[in-house]
């Protein structure tokens, strides 16, 4: 790159220029050698799954299982790549050109946003069973050992001196589920009075000392930094925190009512059609619904859809009354997103940073 047109000048000798030149060509050569394997990694069929924060451990397992399954079924080798981050941010990256073959995000409105740019067919949520959500979760409370503040249900969160940790609903999918679960509880206990529900949720957010951008950030704040009395968390994230960070230091509290969180999945049509990976991408998502896929989801604390698998794991997941996003109170993600989390929406009206 640098050496070419300087090749025949003499004398090389021990000048600095000679050294610099040799160094430069060595670096370029080195870069080329090292770049080769990175670039050729795309030669086999590869699929990129762009996902949200708490699915890392699950998809690490699932990707291996799928690669083995697909090899056995078709003889083809498929390599899975994964990218994780806050659900909204990940959707933004796909919109900006991150070539995801499949997206597996925290909530439907993030995939809607991608569909709105023409990357995914508008009817994506009808293409797979169960609203294209092969596994579900819900929102639970994680409290410190012995539950010193005696937190049992949503109304205990607004008691004096209780600090609640939850991420920012503007950037985090999990946080939006947290918010809506609280809203549903307040509606139910106030006879459907929206003004009083709004008041309750506003009071709840005055108990939040810090809003992280993502679910994993909030978990770290609560668990590692020791801030707050209760963490509003994905059920799977709460179980994982118990498992990874010290069983016996925390307890899970299941509130009387919560929300059915449906993290959906979709093939990114524009990308798979361009890369010729539709067949593999669809097989990948379908495998999420298989018995093996469902069992892996349950292993990583997602509630499986398959009744047989769910029966096997029923002791792990506590029974809880669940409202869904399609309830009359919310009217689906598009409406809920605009009403509650859009610019000037309910959240903007009630949240005042301290």
């Amino acid at each position: 790159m640098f050496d070419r047109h300087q090749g025949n000048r003499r004398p090389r000798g021990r000048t600095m220029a000679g050294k610099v030149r040799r160094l430069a060509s060595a670096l370029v050569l080195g870069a080329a050698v090292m770049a080769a394997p990175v670039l050729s990694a795309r030669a086999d069929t590869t699929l990129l799954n762009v996902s949200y924060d708490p699915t890392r451990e699950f998809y690490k397992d699932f990707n291996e299982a799928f690669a083995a399954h697909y090899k056995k079924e078709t003889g083809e080798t498929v390599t899975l790549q994964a990218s994780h981050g806050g659900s909204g941010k990940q959707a933004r990256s796909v919109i900006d050109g991150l070539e995801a073959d499949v997206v597996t995000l925290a909530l439907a409105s993030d995939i809607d946003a991608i569909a709105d740019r023409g990357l995914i067919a508008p009817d994506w949520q009808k293409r797979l069973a169960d609203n294209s959500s092969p596994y579900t979760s819900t929102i639970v409370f994680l409290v410190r050992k012995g539950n010193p503040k005696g937190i049992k249900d949503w109304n205990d969160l607004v008691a004096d001196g209780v600090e609640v940790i939850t991420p920012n609903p503007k950037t985090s999918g999990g946080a939006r589920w947290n918010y809506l679960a609280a809203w549903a509880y307040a509606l139910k206990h106030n006879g459907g009075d929206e003004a009083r529900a709004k008041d309750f949720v506003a009071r709840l957010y005055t108990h939040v000392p810090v809003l992280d951008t993502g679910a994993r950030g909030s978990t770290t704040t609560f668990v590692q930094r020791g801030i707050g009395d209760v963490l509003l968390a994905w059920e799977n994230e709460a179980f994982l925190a118990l498992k990874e960070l010290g069983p016996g230091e925390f307890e899970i509290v299941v509130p009387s009512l919560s929300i059915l969180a449906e993290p959906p999945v979709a093939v990114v049509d524009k990308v798979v059609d361009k890369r010729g990976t539709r067949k593999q991408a669809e097989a990948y998502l379908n495998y999420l619904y298989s018995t093996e896929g469902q069992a892996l989801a349950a292993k990583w604390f997602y509630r499986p859809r398959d009744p047989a698998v769910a029966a096997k794991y029923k002791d792990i997941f506590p029974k809880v009354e669940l409202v869904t996003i399609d309830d009359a109170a919310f009217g689906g993600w598009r409406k809920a997103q605009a009403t509650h989390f859009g610019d000037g929406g309910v959240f903007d009206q009630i949240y005042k940073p301290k």
Partner: protein
Amino acid sequence: MDGAPRSNDATTEGPFLRLGLSGIALLYLALFLVLPLVAVFVEAFAKGLGPFLAAVTEPDALSAVKLTLIVAAISVPMNLVFGVAAAWAIAKYEFWGKSFLITLIDLPFSVSPVISGLVYILLFGAQGLLGPWLYEHDIKIIFAVPGIVLATIFVTFPFIARELIPLMQEQGTSEEEAAISLGASGWQTFRRVTLPNIRWGLLYGVLLCNARAMGEFGAVSVVSGHVRGLTNTMPLHVEILYNEYNFTASFAVASLLALLALVTLILKSVLEWRYGDEIAASARH
């Protein structure tokens, strides 16, 4: 030397003041530099050598190391060429808009790295200015190695030029003029007169540039897409591992990164020690 009179007491501080000042300086260094560095290594080896080695030889970690080295190997030589060219033009010639050029070179220092990354998203992203054209021609810049290299070049651009400009200005143009009047060509003059004069400043700039290129987080994070084993550099990998509750592995990779920086510094010290006389002869550094 031996016969020289001892320095005058009036210009020397008392022993307490001297000790006190060096004590404060050392304490400050220990607190803000050494302690965190030690903490990284302690945490990295908290579970012993086995987990440390497992963490740094894991395929995703290896590919992060590889990518970091590739990015540095491309961006440092690029900035070397452009840095020398810019410093040469600024120090040896007078032209209209020179001070504007100097300001422009400093721009990456004054802009937040996140903005540096976003600029490339706005330019090359699918919704960006050149995005649709790039998409049609199947050229990937953002969320791929070229984007990471571009962002790194942008962020590390001033290091070499900034190091060379004052040095070259101080040296003036008389030696070059002498060489040319003796019949040397432009390239010969540069290679045999200018380059030897600036080599230590150049080396210093390269080392600084390299250290930053390997360590850059913000700008790279914006354009990376965070695909494991493909577009994760070492600093990004450290963050990912930390977020996966994988603290030992996270600090293991961090210690590796620190080690790379330390090697750079040691290299610089060794060169200074070996060529100390030459350095003193060629003014700074």
